[in-house]
Every structure is written in structure tokens, then in C-alpha cells.
């Protein structure tokens, strides 16, 4: 047999594997040498009971539920740890009385101290212990002693609860924490029948990945505060979907009951998230219900009032038609490909404008050029699987654990397998240590200079075939960085991928929601591209905007200065812009603002027409993750009536007399008919390295769990967030003490100060956490010069 892997660069290499012949329950089969009995049996459809076994964790053979008979071995062997050798003859419980009795005995032991409180247990109905007790256990226990008891439940974190008496000591949770997440904050304590999972005193299990332990717990011992006692599994409707929280692109399963989402689980996607997800993706979904814009609204005599859909569409149409040619379109970073495509087409056709941008964050023209030249519409060149075989991975302006947590897990896995991880950044974080990474220290603002002066050893490390460079969205804030990254990729031959934070950024980029770019990375000014797109859109090239439009920041300035007459704003939080004051003034000064939103916001407050749109569970769509891999998903809540952005835009376009498909299926077909772009591309930018600001400069990124709007109303999750602290060098902390006031142009924040491995003239604060929102509180972005003062005195 030859195993062909079809992912990642150079993946059409055929790998020949040593095959051996084995017999399981009388069936002869060939498997690669070293295959575990339990995995081979699965291939035959033979299910051997198991608790501690998990295909992504190292075997431990602790629970002994999987004992099977191997010919020639005196004792039954654990199938989860027994590697097959050539000619091995294995008998499972179906063919061996020894194996059957061994499994039955273990099952009887497991139920001994288990409370059998299935009727009140969250796991009841989807419980491996329940199921396997039925399939291989004795009908009745012979134990009539007293069961071990524990106080219940205990919090191993604010989000994860532990009922110790239900635990079967399989150690899946502790092994996950140690092997996968690198957060060994839970461990088995005590011994014998008193053995239990626990944490160190006052050190809760505040891992970003803690929710996975709830999912892989084979009994009801670990439960989440958000789901505990909320539902029974058999009352739930389960729908596979994709995560909307970041660009990692996790497959999820969303469970709902009576139209209300009760929980989300990581779904099995070996190429992307394997079987894991982060706690934000798992627990942050209550925002979908609360604070929603429920009805269309129009402004009348200065006040917003509820309106009917026809009334609101009419108002939007009239306002936009009057401003045609002078309308800016701001698409938030959370749109699906289909919605972003609708915005892109709506802008170019109905509004006759190329003033469109999806980047609701710090951005630059260099970045727009880089994305147009190197990212938009490109195929998957660097993949998750590719990371595992990469000799080296270089991270630039990217903190994966906070900004793309599943990327972090895969990088950690890769590092454990021998991949060297290097990071160009300001702080040697704990997270980097978990990836055994090496920091190439760059003062914020000076990343390009560091990239352009790498030593020979590092350059030759990066020149090995299979090397990957991952650059984060924060690179846009440091002049020359993206140019330098592209130069380095060209010089070393490394694969290059851009890792934005939000789930919709790559989707919007490829859908053409950026000035100068039509769908699929087609340059607006390329005649062939215009022809293709015009044909798909049922118009003529001449009717498309002739010149490249404004970037997001330019749109905001133009709106503020009265150069744009109207704005169409979809899913934008103004404080996410590097200059929130400019954004507010732009919305305030724009003559006419149409807001497509699902939540009340600073934009809906000021808009002339507010059109409610669907959240991710109420519509179908596709996200492109950082790899460029499509993550299509269907509508989760079957009965939801709220329309998606594309549908709403199509109604407005229709009223303006312009055709625009509004349903996901038509848009997908249209995108499919456009196909990939093979023509000319933008020039890669060549911007000189930034010099960096003088004095103490600010380093910052968004923590995974912070003040983000989509984490609202989930207090248990919020309680596991990292505390809001500033970080500085030991020298700086010695001078400043344990509290620091950071002052920027707009104001100050006072935070506890911790020592970190960081340059003396750099201070790190979280970008958008409770008590520290740098855009609004400081008026600063990473790389800006800030002033530090000791204690609370500003």
C-alpha cells in the first residue's frame, strides 16, 4: 500500500510504508508496521472498549478496558498500546473468552465507585462509560460495599467543573493539558481509590483550551459551567458548522434545542483543527442571542424608529441612489465569502464605487498592496499539515496562542515533532516557550529591519525546503514589514501565509471587498479581469469603476471631510479602528449612513437606516481560513428568519434596479463560474524599513479572551481570561515597581506590572482587555511612543 497525502506543498510525494500481515478475530489484514491493535481493529469495524485511549494522545494503557488476547502472550494485552508485529494473531472480545472476561472485569471495576447518577448527569445519553458498560459489562454488579464519595462539584476553573466521584482516572484531561495544550495546570493527585484530578492551590485551569477536556472526558466528570444541567443530549439538534471567531477555521458542531444554541463542540477535521478548538470558539456564543437589532429602523426627525422592511429598503435606496458614485463601503472583518462578495459587487455596480475596505483595524497601503500581490485569490500554499513537516516556521508579528489558537496547537505539535519555531516579535512569551520557539527580538516598528538583517545561520535555516513564514495582521502597523517578509520568502523559497485574526478577513479579501481588487484577486484595472467580472455580473467593463478606490482609512477621512456623501457599514465596531475618533467623525459627518448590523452599536446609533442581519447560526456561508481553505457551513437554526447581509443587499440593489444575487447558492455558483485568476497581479510592495519611534515604545496584541463584543454575556469564560497586566523588562520593573501608568496621546491606563523577557525600552499591554483599550484609552497603536510612570500617578 502507498499512502498519499494530498495536503501541503510537495504533498504529491508517495510514501511507501512497511506493511505487515496480521490476523484480528480470524480476519487477515495488512497494516503499516507499528499500528496499534485498537486502530487496526477499528478498520475492521471491531470496536474494542476504551477510556484512556485517544488517537491524538500518547498511549497510557491505564484504564485496561481494551484488554485483548494476543497469541503467544501469557497475559491479555491492552489494545491501545500493543503495536502489531508481522504475523501477530489477535483475538478481541468477540473471539476470545479471555478478552471478553478481562473487559467485563475491568468494566465491573470501573462502575464500582461510579455513582451511576446517569439520570442527572450531563453525559447521560452520550456517555462512553454508559455505552460500553452496556456493550461489554455485566448486567448487574456484584459489589455491595460502600462507594467512595467526594464533595461535588469542584471548580478546576471558572468554566470547567469536576465531579470527582464520576471520574474513572483515564487521564485524558491531564494528558491533553500537558501534551496538546502545553498547560499542565491539572494533574492527578493522591493515589489508589482516592486518586483525583486537581489543580495546585489558587492556580485554576485557565487554559485557552480547557473546554476540550470536557469534550474528551469519557464520563460526566468534567462539565462546563455554561452547559451543566442545561439539556439532555437526545433533546438536541446537532449541526456541523464552522467557527466565526478567528481565521483558524475550526470545524464545529453546534447543538441547539428549541431554537436556542446550548453548546458548541470541536468537530473532527484532521486537516485543520484535528479534534480540538479553543474556549472562545466553544463557549462564546451567547452574543448571538443578546443585544440584537430585531427590526429595521429609519431615522425620522433625528430619531431612529422601527420601520417595516419595505419602508427601510426604500429609505436606504433613496439615500444611496442620491449619493451614487460617492459612497464608501466598510465591511467588517467577520463577513462570509458570500456576504463580502455581495458587498463587493453591490459597491461596484449599485453604488458605482470602488471605495471599499474590510480592514476594521490598523491597516496600511503597503498591506493592501501586499495582500493584493501575494494573498488574494491564491491557493493553499502553507497548510496546517505542512507545518508539521516544515523544518522551520518563522512567525512575524503573530502571537498564535492569542491570535489563532488552533494554529498555536498545530505549531506546538510540529515543534514537538522537531520543527524549529522562530518568532520576530517584542516579547519572549510563555506561549513561544510552549512551542520551544526562539525569539528574534524586534522593537515594535522595527520588524522589517530585523527581517532584513537576519544572520546567515537563520537564513540558511529558513532556506530549507518546506519552511513556512506566517505573518500576522499586526505587520500592517510596522512600515516595511510585509515588504521584508515577501523579500525573505522570495529569497529563501519559503511558503508564505498571512494570518489575520478575524474569520472574515481572508473571505472578504478573496471576495473583492478591497479597493482595487475584484473577486479572486483580480486587479480592478486589468482589462481581462474587468471583462471576466463584468460578464459574471451581467454588466459591461465600462460600467465598473474605472480607477482604484480609497482604502478604509481614506474612506473615513473622505467621509469626515465631506468628500463622500454616504457610507454603507456592515458589522463594524468603531473602536476597532486605529483612530476611533476619526471613525466616529466619519460616521457623524457622512451625509447618509446605512448600517447592516446584528447588534446595536455606535454605528447603528448614528445611522440613517439600520437593517438587521443574521448572525452566523442563522445563515449559510463560507469562511476562508488563514490557509485560504474554504470552511463552508449551513444554516444551523433551521427556523431562523433573519436575512444575511447578501440577501438584504440584494433587496436594496433590486430596489435600485440593479441585479444582485442574494442567496448563498447563487453566489457560490457565480464565484465558481468566475474561477481562479491566472492573470496579472499587483506588484509586491517594496517599502523601506521603519525606523521605530523614540523613547519607550508600545507592544500590544489582542488577547484571545478580552473585551471583544462576541464574548459578551459569558461570565464563566471571561473569568478564565488572562489578567490585564503590563509587561516590561526586569530593569524597567525594578525602576517602576509593581504598578505602572502608561500614557499615550489620548490618555493613560494604570496596570499591574509584571516582568517579562522584553527589551528595556518596550512595554507590553493588552490591546483590548478590561481596563486597557489602547485605541481609545491611549490613542496609540503598537510601535507608538508612550510614557511610563511609576504607580498610579499619570
Amino acid at each position, binding site marked *: 500500500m502507498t499512502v498519499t497525502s494530498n495536503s501541503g506543498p510537495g504533498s504529491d510525494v508517495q510514501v511507501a510504508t512497511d506493511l505487515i500481515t496480521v490476523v484480528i478475530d480470524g480476519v487477515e489484514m495488512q497494516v503499516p508496521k507499528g499500528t496499534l491493535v485498537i486502530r487496526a481493529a477499528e478498520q475492521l469495524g471491531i470496536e474494542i472498549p476504551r477510556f484512556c485511549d485517544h488517537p491524538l494522545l500518547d498511549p497510557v494503557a491505564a*484504564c485496561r478496558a481494551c484488554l485483548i488476547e494476543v497469541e503467544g502472550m501469557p497475559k491479555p494485552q491492552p489494545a491501545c498500546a500493543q503495536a502489531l508485529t508481522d504475523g501477530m494473531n489477535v483475538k478481541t472480545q468477540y473471539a476470545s473468552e479471555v478478552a471478553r472476561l478481562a473487559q467485563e472485569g475491568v468494566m465491573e471495576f470501573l462502575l464500582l465507585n461510579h455513582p451511576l447518577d446517569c439520570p442527572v448527569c450531563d453525559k447521560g445519553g452520550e456517555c462512553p462509560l454508559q455505552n460500553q458498560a452496556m456493550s461489554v459489562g455485566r448486567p448487574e454488579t*456484584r459489589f455491595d460495599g460502600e462507594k467512595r464519595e467526594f464533595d461535588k462539584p469542584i471548580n478546576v476553573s471558572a468554566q470547567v467543573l469536576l465531579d470527582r466521584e464520576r471520574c474513572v482516572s483515564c487521564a485524558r484531561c491531564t494528558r491533553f493539558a500537558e501534551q496538546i495544550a502545553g498547560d499542565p495546570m491539572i494533574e492527578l493527585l493522591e493515589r489508589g481509590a482516592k486518586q483525583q484530578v486537581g489543580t495546585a492551590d489558587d492556580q485554576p485551569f485557565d487554559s485557552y483550551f480547557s473546554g476540550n477536556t470536557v469534550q474528551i472526558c469519557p464520563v460526566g466528570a468534567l462539565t462546563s459551567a455554561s452547559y451543566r444541567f442545561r439539556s439532555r443530549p437526545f433533546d438536541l439538534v446537532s449541526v456541523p458548522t464552522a467557527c466565526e471567531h478567528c481565521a483558524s477555521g475550526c470545524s464545529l458542531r453546534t447543538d441547539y434545542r428549541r431554537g436556542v444554541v446550548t453548546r458548541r463542540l470541536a468537530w473532527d477535521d484532521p486537516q485543520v483543527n484535528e479534534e480540538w478548538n479553543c474556549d472562545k470558539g466553544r463557549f462564546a456564543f451567547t452574543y448571538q442571542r443578546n443585544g440584537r437589532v430585531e427590526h429595521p429602523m429609519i431615522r425620522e426627525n433625528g430619531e431612529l424608529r422601527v420601520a417595516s422592511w419595505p419602508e427601510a429598503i426604500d429609505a436606504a435606496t433613496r439615500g444611496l441612489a442620491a449619493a451614487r458614485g460617492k459612497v464608501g463601503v466598510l465591511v467588517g472583518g467577520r463577513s462570509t465569502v458570500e456576504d463580502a462578495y455581495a458587498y463587493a459587487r453591490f459597491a461596484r455596480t449599485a453604488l458605482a464605487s470602488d471605495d471599499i475596505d474590510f480592514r476594521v483595524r490598523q491597516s496600511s497601503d503597503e498591506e493592501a498592496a501586499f495582500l493584493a500581490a501575494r494573498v488574494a485569490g491564491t491557493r493553499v500554499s502553507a497548510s496546517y499539515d505542512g507545518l508539521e513537516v516544515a523544518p522551520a516556521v518563522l512567525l512575524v508579528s503573530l502571537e498564535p496562542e492569542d491570535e489563532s489558537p488552533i494554529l498555536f496547537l498545530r505549531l506546538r505539535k510540529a515543534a514537538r515533532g522537531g520543527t524549529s519555531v522562530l518568532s520576530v516579535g517584542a516579547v519572549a512569551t510563555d506561549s513561544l516557550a510552549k512551542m520551544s520557539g526562539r525569539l528574534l527580538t524586534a522593537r515594535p516598528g522595527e520588524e522589517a529591519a530585523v527581517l532584513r538583517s537576519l544572520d546567515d545561520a537563520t537564513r540558511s535555516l529558513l532556506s530549507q525546503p518546506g519552511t513556512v513564514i506566517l505573518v500576522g495582521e499586526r505587520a500592517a502597523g510596522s512600515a516595511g514589514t510585509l515588504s521584508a517578509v515577501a523579500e525573505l520568502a522570495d529569497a529563501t523559497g519559503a511558503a508564505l501565509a498571512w494570518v489575520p485574526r478575524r474569520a472574515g478577513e481572508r473571505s472578504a479579501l478573496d471576495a473583492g471587498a478591497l479597493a482595487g481588487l475584484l473577486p479572486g484577486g483580480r486587479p480592478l484595472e486589468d482589462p481581462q479581469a474587468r471583462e471576466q467580472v463584468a460578464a459574471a455580473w451581467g454588466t459591461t467593463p465600462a460600467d465598473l469603476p474605472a480607477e482604484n478606490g480609497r482604502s478604509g482609512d481614506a474612506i473615513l477621512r473622505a467621509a469626515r471631510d465631506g468628500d463622500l456623501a454616504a457610507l454603507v457599514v456592515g458589522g463594524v465596531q468603531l473602536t476597532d479602528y486605529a483612530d476611533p475618533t476619526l471613525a466616529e467623525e466619519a460616521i457623524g459627518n457622512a451625509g447618509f449612513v446605512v448600517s447592516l448590523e446584528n447588534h446595536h452599536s455606535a454605528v447603528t446609533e448614528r445611522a440613517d437606516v439600520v437593517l438587521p442581519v443574521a448572525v452566523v447560526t442563522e445563515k449559510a456561508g463560507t469562511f476562508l481560513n488563514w490557509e485560504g481553505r474554504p470552511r463552508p457551513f449551513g444554516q444551523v437554526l433551521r427556523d431562523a428568519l433573519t436575512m444575511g447581509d447578501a440577501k438584504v443587499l440584494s433587496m436594496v440593489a433590486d430596489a435600485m434596479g440593479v441585479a444582485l444575487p442574494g442567496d448563498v447558492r447563487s453566489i457560490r455558483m457565480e464565484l465558481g463560474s468566475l474561477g481562479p485568476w491566472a492573470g496579472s497581479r499587483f506588484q509586491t510592495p517594496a517599502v523601506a524599513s521603519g525606523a521605530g519611534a523614540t523613547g519607550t515604545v508600545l507592544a500590544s496584541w489582542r488577547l484571545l479572551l478580552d473585551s471583544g463584543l462576541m464574548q459578551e454575556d459569558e461570565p464563566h469564560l471571561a473569568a478564565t481570561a488572562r489578567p490585564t497586566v503590563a509587561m516590561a523588562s526586569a530593569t524597567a520593573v525594578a525602576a517602576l515597581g509593581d504598578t505602572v501608568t502608561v500614557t499615550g496621546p489620548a490618555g493613560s491606563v494604570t496596570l499591574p506590572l509584571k516582568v517579562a523577557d522584553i527589551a528595556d525600552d518596550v512595554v507590553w499591554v493588552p490591546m483590548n482587555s478590561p481596563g486597557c483599550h489602547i485605541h481609545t484609552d491611549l490613542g496609540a497603536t503598537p510601535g507608538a511612543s508612550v510614557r511610563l510612570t511609576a504607580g498610579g500617578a499619570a
Partner: protein
Amino acid sequence: MALTPVITEHWDDPELFTIAGYRRHGGYSALAAALKQDPDAIIGTVKDSGLRGRGGAGFPTGLKWSFVPQNDGKPHYLVVNADESEPGACKDIPIMIANPHSLIEGVIITSFAIRANHAFIYIRGEVPEAIRRVANAVREAREAGLIGRDILGSGFDLDVVVHAGAGAYICGEETALLDSLEGLRGQPRLKPPFPAVAGLYASPTVINNVETICNIPYIVGRGVEWFRQFGTEKSPGFKVFAVSGHVNRPGIYEAPLGITMRELLDYAGGMIDDRPVKFWLPGGSSVPMLTAEHLDTPMTYEAMAEAGTMLGTGTPMLFNDTVSVVKAVTRWLEFYKHESCGKCTPCREGTYWITGTLERFQEGHGSDREMEVLTDLCGQIAGRSFCALGDAAATPYPAAMKYFRDEFAAATSTPVDETFDPAASYVFSGAAAR
């Protein structure tokens, strides 16, 4: 058969524990000779001697050493298992207290043979006397240039670390011992890889019992033929037997393997008050019990196996007819329940169940059904647990049932303290009479 004091020969010298005392009796002369040999030759000598591990399993020592891959570029380690915690076993601790330098000399020679530059002695934490004596011996040996760099000009470097355990029986299991030594929770490791290939710090490691290592200087110093004159073909050499229980002179008796329990019992002054032997265990609580009919069975690995038991640690415990088997088995199970590490299900839950049931038998509340259930449970643990602790816990009950089923049957209606007056079995009653 005559006693053959070797390791114990000069224990009457109160200064033996010092390096001067040890040297006075020829100590460290084997080391000087060994360091001039080819390490492989020493491994060959130990192989030829047929020395078998004295920790209980009886695995051939030389063979174990030869499993260590040579010229593999990795550091090698010697770990001495001095975590003697088996109920009834008390031989390593007296050796370490009385003659610690024989252990140190053995450690140096063994490390030289297996090319280890670091050796660790993992001593049971509850015996500070032994820890102090061994630590002192290491210090003296270091000061004398026997530990450290370029030992006796041979170019061989060795550092020896004395490590105190924290009170867990499981840490006598060699892989749990390694985890404990590495600072982890002491629980047995999945094998393979075996310690000889990936042991301490994932490097090739030899783990030997104290008494095994103490044999090495004598074998290397006096030769294979001298060693093989004692014992049998399959169990060559001598053994430090620690006799305890209802005997008049409990203590250490070093004799050739193959001596019978009856002979050892004679040396130990016979049974207290001449009461009959009711049952006895050749080597700790983890081996099946025997009765008076087995007193003439040679104390060798092979003869004990034939009798359905094991030589184990070679520390016989003898019980007279005042002792309730039910109570003795319950005590042992309480020990295993307390010491089960919790890693695997059969041992963790099985010891919990069996102990609870036996405690009811002890109160006279057993039942015929539960006697059968207990037999089943032991079968569900033996050979199914992760390590030998579970196997050991599943041993006492079936062995006791083999010879004393009636006592368990009686315990279904009568508390054992009514059948057997506990006061009658107290050793001090007999001792006082003496």
C-alpha cells in the same frame, strides 16, 4: 547446610560502616582490580556467575547489564533500588546500615561495567538511618577518591547521588522509581521502551536491588568459581535471608541458596513456644503462602516456583497456629489498597473492593457468595493490572484459600477475633516467657 556470611561477614565490627572499617576487612580491593579490567569482561564475569536479582523477580543480573546498548552516544545511568517497602522484607535496610560501603563499591564497579558516569541510590524515605549511613559512605568514598573524577587513576568518572523517596511502595517498581527520581509523580511507565534502552531521562539505565549490587565486589574480587560453589545451577550464590515472625531469633541469616526453611528456622531458634508453623511466606507478602509441609523445600528460585510460590525477596515470614489467615490476608490487602498508585483500574478499584469485603469477613459477615466473588476479583486483577503491584495484591487471597478455605467459611458467621484470640499471637507474649 552451613551459614555463609559474605556480605554480613564482619557485621560484628561496629566500625564496619566507616570506610576505614570496611577497608580493614579487605574492602575496595575488588574495585582496584575491576578498574584495570575491560568493562565487558566484568559484565561477562557477572553473567557467568549466574547472579540473579535479589529484589524479588530473580532476573539474571549480567543479562540485564548486557541489554544496555554500548557506544550509543547517550549517558548511561545506574539506579540502585533501595526502596525496600515490601511487608516482611527487611534485608536491604540492614545491609545499608551495617555495611554501606559494600553497596558503594558495588555501585562503582557496576557503573564502570555499564559505562555509567552517574549512579543514583533511591532509598526508602522512612529509614533516615539508612539514608544517613549511605550518604556518609558516599561522602567518605568521594573524599577517598573512589567517587569523582579519574577514580584511582583509571580515567573513569562517577558521581553518586543518594535520593530519599517520599513514602510510596509503588516507587519500588522500577519505572515508577525512575519517574519519582525525575521529580514526577511515582507511577509505573508503559513498557516498551524498557529502562535498559530508555530509562532515567530517556537514557539507557540499569536498575538493581541493593543486595544484588552488594554481591558484585565479591563476585568480581573472588571469582565465578568461588561464587558458584554456593547454591544451585539455576540459583547460584548465597542470599541474605531475613527471617521474621513467630520464631525465637528473628534476624538476618546469610546462607547459600538451596538451604531449606527448616534449616533456617533452626538457625532462628525454632518457633516460639514450639508451636507449629501454620503458614509461611518465602519472600514478602507478594508471594503465595506455603505451609509446614513445604519446610523442606530448597530456598531456590526454581524450587519455590515448583512449589507454587516465589523466592521473592528471600525474607521468610513464619506464622504459628494462633494467627487467623483471614486477618493476615486482610492486613496485606489493606496495605495494597493503601499503596495502589491509582493508575490502572484493576488494581485501584480491585484492592478497594477486596479490602472492603475482607474487612467484613473479619467481622464475621462474609458469605459463601462473596468467597467466590473474591476469587473472581483476584482473577480480574492478576495479569490485567498495569504493573506487578496489582498481581501482588491478587496473590494472598487465592493462596490462602488453597490451604485455609475453612477459615474463610467460618468467617461467614464468626468474627475472626472470636476464633483466634489476637492476644495469643502477639510475639511479645512468647518473648516475655523466654
